[in-house]
């Protein structure tokens, strides 16, 4: 068997040009697969399930967890009067006049925001009751983008805010700047209004319920999930490209393998005559296919890693950092191995149907 594999690989080296082109095709397929997986992972990580079981009270038909909701403080009183144990107000909006200087802003109630927001302080400290006006804590991604660290000042709509600390949540929230609720109200011209109330899911109000005056109750995290769903039609089409390339790779591989075996049909027939079994042909074809697809996978993975190392995607003040997870990488390898297997089946079946005597007479 080793002799067949050696013969197969030597033959591959002799006709390296079509194999190189073929490896390029597999690499392109792998690159699209890993690229798509990388973006899907990044979006899932950023906007997927948030670690909260709370409910959000927001303006109906708005995406209050990002922006666009505005509620009067009376709504909070009404919620408490209904028996809700806590209603913590927040402002969600953004500042900036173009996509390049956009900053996602969150106004927080300094007394209670830590009850409903989990984060890890990376540098400096968290905002706390009694802090001076115009202080902020910012997510590490925003700090990275603006090159800021605790003790420095940042500008929000022309006003200077002192950065007290940087935090990490592991989600899109790491792109946000948090300031005191009163500061946000003054900065954004909200008056006494807020954007949302965060309430516990105690069974008094449920997702889908509405309150008079155009107020809706939704599950916390639904807004970010809805936003990320916008990408699904795009991903479906990219998936289509990947599938088409996968099919093309299988068919082209089958074609290349068959033609290579055809060129050497006499030598292969002689091997059969001197005692090699019919499966020797499968080994001959599969060893070429596997080497080729694995070279393609290595090329594709390296190209994707290179692409991801300098490619970050800004999306309305949020930066997506796609990466190759172990799971995606293994799936890519598995699919490429599948290409090798499927690509081998057809020429092996076809070739085994040919008459041995005819193959020997072929020269």
């Amino acid at each position, binding site marked *: 068997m080793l002799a067949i594999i050696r013969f197969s690989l030597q033959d591959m080296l002799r006709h390296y040009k079509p194999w190189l082109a073929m490896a390029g095709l597999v690499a392109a397929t792998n690159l699209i697969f890993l690229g798509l997986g990388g973006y899907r992972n990044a979006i899932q990580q950023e906007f997927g399930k948030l670690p909260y079981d709370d409910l959000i009270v927001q303006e109906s038909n708005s995406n209050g967890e990002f922006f666009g909701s505005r509620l009067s403080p009376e709504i909070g009183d009404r919620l408490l009067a209904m028996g809700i144990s806590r209603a913590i107000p927040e402002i969600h909006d953004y500042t900036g006049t173009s996509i390049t200087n956009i900053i996602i802003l969150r106004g927080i109630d300094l007394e209670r925001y830590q009850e409903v927001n989990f984060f890890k302080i990376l540098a400096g400290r968290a905002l706390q009751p009694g802090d001076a006006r115009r202080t902020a804590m910012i997510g590490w991604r925003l700090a990275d983008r603006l090159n800021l660290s605790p003790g420095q000042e940042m500008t929000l709509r022309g006003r200077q805010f002192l950065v007290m600390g940087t935090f990490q949540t592991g989600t899109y929230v790491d792109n946000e700047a948090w300031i005191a609720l009163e500061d946000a109200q003054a900065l954004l011209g909200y008056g006494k209004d807020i954007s949302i109330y965060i309430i516990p899911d105690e069974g008094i109000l449920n997702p889908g319920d509405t309150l008079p005056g155009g107020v809706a109750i939704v599950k916390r995290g639904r807004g970010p999930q809805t936003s990320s769903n916008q990408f699904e039609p795009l991903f479906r*089409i990219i998936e289509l490209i990947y599938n088409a390339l996968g099919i093309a790779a299988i068919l082209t591989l089958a074609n290349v393998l068959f033609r290579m075996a055809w060129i050497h049909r006499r030598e292969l027939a002689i091997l059969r005559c001197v005692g090699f079994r019919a499966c020797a042909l499968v080994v001959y074809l599969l060893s070429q296919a596997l080497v080729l697809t694995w070279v393609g996978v290595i090329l594709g993975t390296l190209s994707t890693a290179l692409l991801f190392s300098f490619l970050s995607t800004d999306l309305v003040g949020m930066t997506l950092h796609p990466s190759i997870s172990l799971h995606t990488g293994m799936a890519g390898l598995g699919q490429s191995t599948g290409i090798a297997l499927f690509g081998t089946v057809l020429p092996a079946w076809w070739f085994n149907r040919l008459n041995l005597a005819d193959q020997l007479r072929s020269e």
Partner: protein
Amino acid sequence: MKFSVFGAYLFKDLFFDRGRSFLTIFSLTAVIVSYLAASAISDVFLEFGSQPQTGSRNLLIVSDYALDPMQSKLDDSILQAAAEVVRQEFGPDSVLSAFPTIYRTLNINGRNLRMLAVPRENLMRDSSLTLLEGDWPESDEHVIVTQEALQLNGWKIGDRILIRGSNLLITGRVQEEAARTSAIWMTYDGGQKLFNVQSDFQIGVLQIDDSQDLTTVQAHLEQDPHFPTGYAVYLNQQLYERYTDIVRDFLKAAFSIAALASGAVILGTFNATSLTMAERKQEIAILQTIGFTSRTIRLFLLGRTHLQTLVAFCLAWGVMAIIVQNSLKFPIVFYAKTAVLRLSPEILFLGFLLTMLSASLGVWLTARAQSSLSLADQLRE
């Protein structure tokens, strides 16, 4: 050689080698489909990334800090002050109308949608809308909807839609001149009630007379000391153009995919054609021995390859047409702007050119390599 003989020989050869000819055609088809799909995606992003010029004569006034018009807030005094500045400079007839617009981005059925409320007479006359079906809104609870919003949400004229607790009746289907957006339009009075607003709105619109140059008026307004501070003036396309920046990075990604697919189409076609040639070295040498010139043989091989590529291209076109038709059910929507996959003549032409060129390259490179060998060597191979 006569064309008919050439053609007959070509078809006979393809038929004789039909199994592998089909395999070659199908693999080429799959490669071309991936290229066309990738190019179509790039086209979608180009559509997102550009705001078409319109014949609109409107200047839009919004708060200068607002990225999304929904963040803007102004009242009638601001709008009238701006109109007065224009009239002072460009004459009393330079402003045809000045009207308010309430603007909201809403989330309906998990998708973003724009909602605009404009005084009824301006809605019918000055909003660059074409009524395709039904009637203009007659009351506060009537709305007209762009065909993109109708399609996305499965609505039809006569349906009632629940927004902020109000059951609004769809009375008409409209098309916006500027772009394919998912939007609902209603009367200003209706918008005030729906969103519970009194005197403030998001966009002030000045309709400027045809005799004036719109950009000159815009520049003057921005510099005039009497123009209220804290506000900015935009042309229609400028205001919405800022949304298109949102997909800027995705545009790069889409172009990368298209470039990758172009590479794949070149590699795939080259592979298929060069292998056919490599496998037939001996037959080609025999043909040369019995008197065929290398030019005739090259022409024959080129014809064979082009025929396969042409059939593959037509198949790929058909497959893509089906995909495009099906994708209409799942349009790509970013921030209420809608785009669907489509196969433009440019994409098809470029795709055709690329596949044919790479097929020719495959034949040429292999033929060149073979011609460097002596006839005897070719026969011995």
